[in-house]
């Protein structure tokens, strides 16, 4: 695997929101393959609470995109059976913390079926989860639950941060032979970018398992993913204004993890900060720090730092800004990377 730098947006492209890119990916996948079915809570005529499935029932019929009873274990468990029997289910968990009733199905069956059947049964299914904070959501609507899934062998865990990745990675996830937990940063649903859909629709380099250098830089590396990506880019902008060049790595794929790109990036700068919304203790961020220290120790000029959410339940809307990694906290961590030694 090699580091891939995102190409600049093509001038002939079209402007899309992150949400619309996901909707388009679902529609294109359903158009391309009759085995793709979409179901969950409110995903039918309403189009989902975030409207990601908008128009799918109308266009493909209620056998292809349908509402289920309000039961997350039922949704995921039924998807397991449908995947066993030749379908490609794409299910929606309405919010991160509402996915927990499905946890046993995810951990004990979705993740283990291939292994438990010695490869006879594969489960090509996608569990879409709107996740993370930054939208002023009330309790149980803002969790960063990636560590639960990333810790479970057998799951593939993705967290795209760009409009192009939203489209291309969801298409790739639906085509993937293994179950994918697809984490959609809620606060990025309304972010926009100009993308060339036709180019994205054409077969391209796989994105699952590949991190990208989202911004080149030479002084230190910010390693991040999902909802924290724009924050990291903003921090890099601010640092540039102060004369410090920060590289930003967008992981995109938490599992499989792209050690190669991350390691090469950190070795090139010798300093690293991992940025993620989730509480830091026993987190994906902790795992990244450990991997980087193990692999890059002799290239490091300073200990790898983390900027994460605090180890507290996700705070109320008016307090979340104190919890979420912000530009200043990232820059403070960068300042701590032993520049004088």
């Amino acid at each position, binding site marked *: 695997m090699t580091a891939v730098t995102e190409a600049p947006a093509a001038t002939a492209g079209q402007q899309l929101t992150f949400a619309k890119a996901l909707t388009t990916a679902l529609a294109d996948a359903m158009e391309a393959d009759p085995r793709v079915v979409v179901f969950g809570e409110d995903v039918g005529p309403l189009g989902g609470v975030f409207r990601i499935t908008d128009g799918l029932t109308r266009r493909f019929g209620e056998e292809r995109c349908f509402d289920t*009873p309000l*039961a997350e*274990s039922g949704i995921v468990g039924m998807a397991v059976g449908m995947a066993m029997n030749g379908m490609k289910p794409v299910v929606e968990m309405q919010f991160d913390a509402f996915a927990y009733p499905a946890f046993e199905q995810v951990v004990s069956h979705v993740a283990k079926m*291939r292994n438990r059947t010695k*490869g006879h049964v594969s489960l090509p299914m996608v569990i879409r989860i709107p996740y993370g904070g930054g939208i002023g959501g009330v309790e149980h609507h803002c969790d960063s639950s990636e560590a639960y899934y990333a810790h479970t062998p057998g799951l593939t865990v993705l967290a795209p941060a760009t409009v192009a990745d939203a489209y291309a990675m969801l298409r790739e996830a639906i085509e993937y032979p293994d179950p994918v937990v697809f984490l959609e940063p809620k606060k990025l649903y309304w972010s926009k970018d100009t993308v060339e859909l036709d180019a994205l629709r054409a077969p391209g380099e796989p994105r699952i398992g590949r991190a990208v250098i989202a911004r080149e830089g030479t002084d230190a590396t910010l390693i991040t993913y999902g909802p924290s990506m724009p924050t990291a880019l903003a921090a890099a902008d601010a640092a540039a204004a102060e004369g410090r060049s920060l590289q930003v790595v967008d992981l995109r794929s938490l599992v499989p*993890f792209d050690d190669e790109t991350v390691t090469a990036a950190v070795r090139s700068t010798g300093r690293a900060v991992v940025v993620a919304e989730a509480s830091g203790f026993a987190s994906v961020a902790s795992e990244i720090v450990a991997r980087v220290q193990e692999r890059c120790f002799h290239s490091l000029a300073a200990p790898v730092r983390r900027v994460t959410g605090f180890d507290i339940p996700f705070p109320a809307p008016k307090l979340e800004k104190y919890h979420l990694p912000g530009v200043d906290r990232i820059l403070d961590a960068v300042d701590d990377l032993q520049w004088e030694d």
Partner: protein
Amino acid sequence: MTSSVDAEVRGGDFLLPSAAPVQLIDQAGRLVPGSGDGGYLLPDGARLLEAYRQLVIGRRVNDQAGALVRQGRMAVYPSSHGQEACQVAAALCLGDEDWLFPTYRDTVAVIARGVEPVGVFELLRGSWHSGYDPYEHKVATQATPLATQLLHAVGVAHAAKLKGEDTVVLALCGDGATSEGDFHEALNFAAVFHVPAVFLVQNNEYAISVPLRHQSVAPSLAHKAVGYGMPGERVDGNDVAAVLAVLGHAVERARQGGGPSLVEAHTYRMQAHTNADDATRYRSDDEVKAWLARDPLSRMQAYLSGAGLLTPEEEASIAAAAEDMARVLRDGLNAEPRLDPTELFRHVYAEQTPQLREQEALLRDELSREEA
């Protein structure tokens, strides 16, 4: 999606189970008078003989498995001694394209369905995978978590329906599993999506040590069906003729587009939960003895002999088949399993991750140093 129009028009009464469990042959092996009146017909002689054959083989499987555990050839075995009639009927009521979703206690059903018997014990002998290809005989892996597999069964049935196939899915669970949330979600999903699924609860009175009265105070477990808008039925789970008739009816109903139903079979786990359990701590010998008289094998033997369907020659042939099965199990399980630790990395993902490649290399290195 479609829902049961019948339920809306006719109200819930027709969904209620019979007042007493359906029985066609009593515990002494006599045909129950008027047993055909309820709409459940006695299966024909050839089918009953085949069922009896499978009962005897199933009992032998249970006995042999218990012995192999005692000899250290298997880690654990959850006995279905006493429940063979439910399990044999579950296997025999399905067509080749239908699916069976068994639990860990349904080994007899899995073997009666035709799955290669030594493979069925792969997990229980301490290996890491289920031992057979679920697609070969349309038998899902034996589920260890409770009730979770019922939802998979609903999914297989829903996919079959969407694809226009006339597959029926039979999902098994025990009385304890009816307390799980997934039992509720599975039956509700099955009813709402009107899928061709049949749920068979083997009510053997105990969930390890906990008696049924601590699981539920519903009039019967079959009554729970009413709440989902599907029919429930109760059957004497030690009367293989009755279980065949009731399950056969439910399967045919599902195949004709009539939707899901719930069958509760009243039976008894004659032995402890597993070899690791001590049943004397929670139930009396007298209680167990009372169930001896209701044994599913002896009543079928009495009925078939009395009806002239079971000749001594036939009986000998069945006994020989059971011994053959026991020998196959002994030979298969006495052989040391060939365990390759590096296989543990092979099927976690379709394509191994770089991290798993590293870890496999580490283990291979350790193994090569052990050999050196």
